[in-house]
């Protein structure tokens, strides 16, 4: 026991002494330690931020217990000849009850209404928050945490309402709100029967309050009717754990057609947790989606960490050769190999640990900014064991890998060798390994530079694709409450106010593709033409005038022609696919009615800007309400205009708050995922390059120091500063050039396949590649030459005296 204790004690002392040496070493080389630690910290922080984002996206819709059993009902639409033309997430109101009734495998099924913001009032103040209607089964599908109320009965009566904690606080300043009354949409009073904890940010079913489906049916009589082909709502189901989804899918396929003989849609269940990331469907099969971008980010995260680790290793090994003397002395005095190995490993682990601490601080500091940029709410859950496990894992891995070369290589030295001729420790292997690492690092950096530039240019290109209408000064607001019945009054008062130049009502938002149909007939159309899919929008007067849409032929709907109430307009590409030579005046059968074509308009971007637009029909329909679209008067400031508009709208429709949306902002949303990609690749690409340069800076310093004597001799013999700088920089330059040569084809290949996803895209011009190459060389040269200059300018006498 005594000896064991003694043994432990001396081991402990050795550890302390080694730690002392490590820390003093760090302190002595403050600059290089800082470079090393902060480089790794930046790398770790970048990696953590990216992985945080990846895990945020990855855990989308996965917060529910047994999320594997939760499925979303999708609707496949028949295309021509037995194909599936598209897959949608909106379902009829009949699927959920039918599924639950017919199939025992379905444990719970719920219809869920859309995520519109709706009015909720506490008696004095009213707020517009996201309110959803759903069947009571939703509480069996999700495991919402009830702070108050009974989960089993909360949604059982039509006048019940469940609110989230923050909604409760907003309304009443407390979560203790059970049985209190709120007023919904200024129409009914509801009793709060449950308070649930706020939902996570990364769920598709966001809500601030939840109401029973029965209330929805009471409020909107028409929704009571079973409608098998009206796809309007989300349907989620929870299957029994032992259920077979494949088999269920096979048996529900004909469900809709069984009830409606000429229906063209069939339901399909798809794992809810996959909808967000694998939401792209071809022929009814998931073929990817956001996951592709996520993989890119994961690669970026690992790449950055790798670059930082390479730096760290390079610096550690480079410096370790200076430590050979210390190893020699210790060995002579009696150090064992094991104690030396542990010393170097401890040293590098201490450094890595410092970096990790710094990285956590960096992440905490930059997370709010990062969240803001991405428009999401992520936070670090320190209680999460996975976070710690992965962090410790990364620290251990980096520390051990970085420390292992000096540890095992240096400790193997014969003490005589290092004490006598110090240079013999520098094997060919170590040098070439370091060179390989630098090349790998810069290859990655160059790939990032090229990719970032291409992505940036593609986004600019997409931004500059002509929209087809004038998006500036265009504002839309939902046509709620009185705004439908009193639209003419609204129009008159607004026009008179001088705040706007035009106003029209539309069935949907101008900014987003929201409706399509097929089955149109026109003079000369064939049976297969009936399968052609058109997008559609309904409006009344002044559509073109308000939006700035360009008419190619004919005219906009006009009051001067009373027959215009049954007229329609076609897009240029619609005219083309319909093969109409003189479209104006042609009679077309649309939605069962005969309509006359009065105008042809230039295609405008309604769907994704990088896709070809579907042929489009704009029809006159008074009852097809949804949005009021306004063009503000550019003579006044937008805020002045909006103030006037708000006053008038409030006057006509007092029960509702006025919510404007600028169409250009909405349009900007379309490129959100591309923008995130651009943003992240810019930030982290820049960081990767920065870290690479930090490493190069350190290596150059080390190399200059190692060659102090050589430089001194050369200088004494007459070399100029320029000569010496060239001598010192050339080696690094060669590595960077090699990296560029490797990176160009790789980047070219990667970016070409990325660009292929877009119908409209830019190319990778040789200019980008040349600029990237020159830029990298310039940055690398600048980094290295500082050190080279310092070394070359030094007094040779100092260099030669040393040794």
């Amino acid at each position, binding site marked *: 026991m005594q000896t064991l204790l*003694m*043994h432990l*004690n*001396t081991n402990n*002392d*050795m550890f302390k*002494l080694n730690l*002392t*040496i490590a820390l*003093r*070493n760090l302190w*002595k080389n403050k600059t290089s330690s800082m470079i090393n630690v902060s480089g790794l910290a930046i790398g770790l922080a970048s990696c953590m931020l990216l992985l945080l984002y990846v895990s945020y996206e990855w855990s989308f819709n996965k917060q529910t217990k047994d999320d594997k059993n939760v499925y979303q009902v999708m609707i496949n639409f028949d295309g021509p000849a037995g194909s599936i033309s598209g897959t949608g997430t909106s379902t009829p109101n009949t699927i959920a009850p039918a599924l639950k009734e017919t199939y025992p495998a379905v444990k719970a099924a719920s219809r869920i209404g859309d995520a519109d913001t709706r009015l909720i009032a506490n008696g004095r103040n009213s707020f517009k928050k996201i309110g959803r209607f759903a069947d009571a089964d939703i509480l069996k599908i999700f495991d919402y945490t009830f702070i108050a109320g009974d989960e089993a009965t909360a949604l059982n009566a039509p006048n019940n309402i469940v609110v989230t904690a923050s909604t409760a606080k907003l309304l009443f300043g407390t979560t203790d709100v059970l049985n209190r009354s709120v007023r919904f949409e200024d129409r009914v009073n509801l009793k709060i029967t449950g308070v649930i904890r706020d939902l996570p940010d990364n769920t598709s079913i966001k809500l601030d309050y939840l109401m029973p489906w029965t209330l929805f049916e009471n409020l909107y009589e028409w929704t009571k009717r079973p409608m098998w082909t009206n796809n309007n709502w989300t349907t989620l189901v929870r299957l029994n754990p032992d259920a077979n989804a494949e088999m269920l899918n096979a048996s529900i396929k004909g469900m809709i057609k069984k009830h409606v003989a000429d229906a063209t849609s069939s339901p399909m269940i798809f794992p809810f947790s996959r909808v967000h990331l694998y939401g792209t469907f071809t022929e009814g099969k998931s073929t990817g989606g956001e996951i592709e971008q996520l993989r890119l980010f994961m690669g970026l995260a690992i790449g950055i960490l790798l670059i930082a680790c390479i730096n760290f290793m390079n610096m550690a090994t480079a410096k370790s050769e200076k430590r050979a*003397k*210390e190893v*020699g*002395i*210790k*060995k*002579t*005095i*009696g*150090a*064992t190999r094991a*104690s030396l190995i542990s010393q170097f490993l401890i040293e590098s682990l201490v450094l890595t640990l410092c970096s990790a601490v710094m990285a956590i601080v960096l992440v905490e500091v930059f997370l709010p900014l990062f969240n803001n940029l991405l428009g999401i709410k992520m936070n670090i859950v320190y209680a999460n064991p996975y976070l710690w496990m992965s962090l410790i894992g990364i620290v251990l891995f980096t520390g051990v890998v970085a420390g292992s070369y000096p540890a095992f290589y240096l400790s193997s030295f*014969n*003490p*005589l060798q290092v*004490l006598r001729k110090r240079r013999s420790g520098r094997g060919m292997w170590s040098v070439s390994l370091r060179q390989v690492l630098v090349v790998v690092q810069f290859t990655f950096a160059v790939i990032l530079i090229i990719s970032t530039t291409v992505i940036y240019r593609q986004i600019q290109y997409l931004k500059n694709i002509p929209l087809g209408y004038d998006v500036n000064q265009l504002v839309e607001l939902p046509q709620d409450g009185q705004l439908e019945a009193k639209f003419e009054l609204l129009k008159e008062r607004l026009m008179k106010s001088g705040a706007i130049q035009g106003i029209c009502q539309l069935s949907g938002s101008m900014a987003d593709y929201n409706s399509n149909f097929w089955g149109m007939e026109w003079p000369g159309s064939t049976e297969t033409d009936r399968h052609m899919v058109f997008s559609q929008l309904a409006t009344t007067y002044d559509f073109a005038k308000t939006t700035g849409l360009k008419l190619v032929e004919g005219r906009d709907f006009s009051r001067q022609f009373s027959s215009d109430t049954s007229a329609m307009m076609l897009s240029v590409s619609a005219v083309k696919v319909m093969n109409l030579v003189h479209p104006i005046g042609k009679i077309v059968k649309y939605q069962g009615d005969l309509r006359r074509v009065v105008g042809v308009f230039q295609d405008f971007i309604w769907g994704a800007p990088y896709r070809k637009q579907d042929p489009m029909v704009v029809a006159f329909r008074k009852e097809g309400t949804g949005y009021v679209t306004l063009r503000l008067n550019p003579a006044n400031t937008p805020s002045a205009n909006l103030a006037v508009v708000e006053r008038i709208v409030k006057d006509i429709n007092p029960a509702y708050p006025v919510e404007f949306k600028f169409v250009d902002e909405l349009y900007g949303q379309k490129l959100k995922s591309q923008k995130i990609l651009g943003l992240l690749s810019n930030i982290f690409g820049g960081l990767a390059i920065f870290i690479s340069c930090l490493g190069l800076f350190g290596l150059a310093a080390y190399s200059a120091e190692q060659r102090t004597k050589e430089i001194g001799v050369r200088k004494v013999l007459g070399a100029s500063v320029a000569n010496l700088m060239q001598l010192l920089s050339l080696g690094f330059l060669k590595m960077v050039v090699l990296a560029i040569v490797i990176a160009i084809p790789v980047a070219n290949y990667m970016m070409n396949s990325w660009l292929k996803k877009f119908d409209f895209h830019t190319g990778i011009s040789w200019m980008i590649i040349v600029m990237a190459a020159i830029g990298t060389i310039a940055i690398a040269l600048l980094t290295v030459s500082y050190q080279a200059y310092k070394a070359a300018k030094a007094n040779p006498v100092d260099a030669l005296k040393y040794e």
Partner: protein
Amino acid sequence: MIKIENLEKVYKTEEIETTALNGINMHVKTGEFVSIMGPSGCGKSTLLNVMGLLDKPESGSYKFLETELLTMNDKQRSNFRKQNMGFVFQNFNLIDELTVFENIELPLIYNKVPATERKRLVNEIIERMNIVNRSGHFPQQLSGGQQQRVAVARALVTKPKLVLADEPTGNLDSSHGNEVMELLCELNEQGTTIVMVTHSSHDASFSNRIINLKDGHVISEKINKSRTEELI
């Protein structure tokens, strides 16, 4: 104490073979102070390194207090070295990151001496070496002579049976050199066996016996009468 027979050591590189030790026979008695002299490349440093178990000869025998050392494996050699030998180098070879105290303490840690005992031993030797007021300094803050004193202190702190010194005054001016030589003499008088490699006949004059090497052979041996008599 030491008996060396027929020691041979050959350095091989790709092109040439250099015979550094060519059948060396010598002995060192306990309490002796032996100098090894000879021109550059005569093999004197190699001999010292072999004696210090830092280098391995091709053949021959090396007995230390009747124990044959050349048949030992690396671990045994390392253990034997740290328990029985101390080293003093020409360029001091102190660890720059450690203070005087810590440098001297280091071999004790490797010998697993408990902390309180270490403190006592180090303080004792620091006092003996007259460097008490330097114990918190780092090597770079000391003069060459002081550094060598620290190195000698480090060599002695484990109370080795044998101290091996490789040109201990080589990097010092004459007054500091003399100080170090006097220190070694003093140690020798207190009973430490010393083997020293030197170029300087002045330094050699401090020892009991001088062995001259040339081309890997012992060519002559001279008893330093004045010192030996003084000893007796």
